[in-house]
């Protein structure tokens, strides 16, 4: 089943002006349920713009984006919030934890916006923290934790609502290689448990964790391992 369907999407800044920038220049991409996709590109390639659009944080200038069959362009600000809350868990390069809240409270936040109350919320948040091995640091503030621990809290926050899609934007970018590997292991584990993982990275080695690799350059998809595999199949069929 097609979870994500992007059809000929453009994101253009300062359109028709001298300094026009085409961050996305006619991108089409399908992602199925349960895939582990890496979107690879150097900085300025448009990969972050693509992730913002896939994550419903931004809307395309032109083109269509269907998430579970729903046209995202037509949703209001509040509906987009609801979609993000229910369908997508975000993991950012800079962790993006709220500094005035402790680990548990950070993980509870998406559950609060989901409308889950009381002990059930607490249980779900603790459950998510257990999955990333941080059940002993629930009351720590972000400033009292290492980068790896903070990123694990962020992962717990992303998975607390059990969203079908996990979007990770350079999740290892601010971590040393060993903690980075640990974070990738957690993501691989989530993939094995059935989540759809979309990983944005500039690092080919990190991208090798994914089953499918999509390379983007100057706002265009230049390589998609899935399509090539399909071509190979048809080629071998001949």
């Amino acid at each position, binding site marked *: 089943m097609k979870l994500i369907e992007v059809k000929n999407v453009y994101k253009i800044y300062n359109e028709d002006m001298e300094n026009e920038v085409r961050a996305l220049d006619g991108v089409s991409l399908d992602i199925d349920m349960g895939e582990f996709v890496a979107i690879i590109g150097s900085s300025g390639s448009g990969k972050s713009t693509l992730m913002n659009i896939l994550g419903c*944080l*931004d809307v395309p200038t032109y083109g269509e984006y269907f998430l579970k069959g729903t046209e995202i362009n037509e949703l209001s*600000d509040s509906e987009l919030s609801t979609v993000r809350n*229910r369908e997508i868990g*975000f993991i*950012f390069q800079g962790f993006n934890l*709220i500094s*005035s809240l402790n680990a548990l409270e950070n993980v509870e*936040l998406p559950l609060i*916006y989901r409308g889950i109350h009381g002990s059930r919320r607490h249980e779900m948040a603790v459950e998510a923290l257990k999955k990333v091995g941080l059940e002993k640091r629930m009351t720590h503030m972000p400033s009292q934790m290492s980068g790896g621990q903070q990123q694990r809290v962020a992962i717990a926050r992303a998975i607390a609502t059990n969203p079908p899609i996990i979007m990770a934007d350079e999740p290892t970018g601010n971590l040393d290689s060993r903690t980075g590997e640990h974070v990738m292991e957690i993501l691989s584990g989530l993939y094995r448990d059935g989540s759809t993982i979309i990983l944005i990275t500039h690092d080919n080695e990190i991208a090798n964790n994914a089953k499918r690799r999509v390379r983007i350059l100057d706002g265009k998809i230049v390589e998609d391992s899935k399509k090539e595999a399909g071509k190979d199949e048809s080629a071998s069929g001949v």
Partner: protein
Amino acid sequence: MNLLQAFKMSFKSIASNKVRTILTMLGIIIGVAAVIILVSLVQGYTKSMVEYYQKQGVNKITVSAYQWNENSISDELYDYCLSLDNLVLGVTPNSQTYTTVKYQAKVNSDCQVYFGSDQYTICNNYKLVEGRDISYLDVQKYNKVCVIGAVAKENLFNYADALGKQISINGVPYTVVGVYEQKYSAGDWSSTYYDNIVVVPYTTSRYLDTYAYSNMSEFVVKAKDSASTTEAITRLTGFLSTKIDTNRGWFDVYSADQYIESSNEQTRMLSMILGGIAGIALLVGGIGIMNIMLVTVTERTREIGIRKAIGARRRSIISQFLIESGVISFVGGLIGIGTGYLLTLVLGKVLFDMIIMPSFVMSVGAAMFSIVIGIIFGIYPAAKASGLQPVDALRSE
């Protein structure tokens, strides 16, 4: 997201920056306290003025009448007032003199000697505790008798019996026939004026102060009620205009009731003006909240972005910021009320020597007003925060 959760979040973020929160509250605290203090003090002062006039006696008409080179009008006025007995309870001259009052070796300084009629007591709202009033006969017969005030009695006799004793007024012996009840509380400044008195029949003023005797021009007429007061003023004015040639003299009839009314009007104005000025302080406090909330929004742009990314709706962000500003101003308002009460009590005691309590309604009103201020001045920052695009907010650092 439910309201309780929104409150929890707001408290959390308020508590995370205590110094700033307190400084922000300070504007509201000062504003609310200022409103309460100023309005309460003016109201308390008004109340004390009204009480003062009531002790002096209501329905009291003061008549001044003087004609050059003529005998005092006192007897004629006295007779005229008797004819108004459906309106008037009593009439008395109200002239006075400062003179030495002695009992044996004891000298009562600062004592005022009043020249009164047999109706002096009722006209000036005194009460007898012992003895009798000056009688009509005393006035007619130039009897050297007197009624003394409570402080005068204490100064001259201490706790000994005063009735029947002879005191010396300016060297003239007078017999004490009555003692007044204390009118003002001991130590009150009014008491030194109105309780340290000796009242003698006005006709005997010829022994004490010949000038006062021939120039008796101050009178007090006591009317039955406020309607009679108005009527009596009209009658007395009419009577005096026939008796006094304004080319050779003057007269004036007025009631303290009118004075109370105009003074009430003045203090109401004063209270409105001062309250308004204090209200401006409150407004400035509200702008202070808005300013800080705007700074907070800018500072927390990234946090707002994160919250929106993980599913906060516009409504959640708006209510979080509105509750934050509302809570800051409400807590500020409560502290302001407390401060206002305390300072009102202290200042009331120091400035007017009174226990002044701010009105409950005003306090509740001030608390409500401070919440309203917080919410009104929170709307713009909250709307600004909620309108941020998550992608732009996340990009900010």
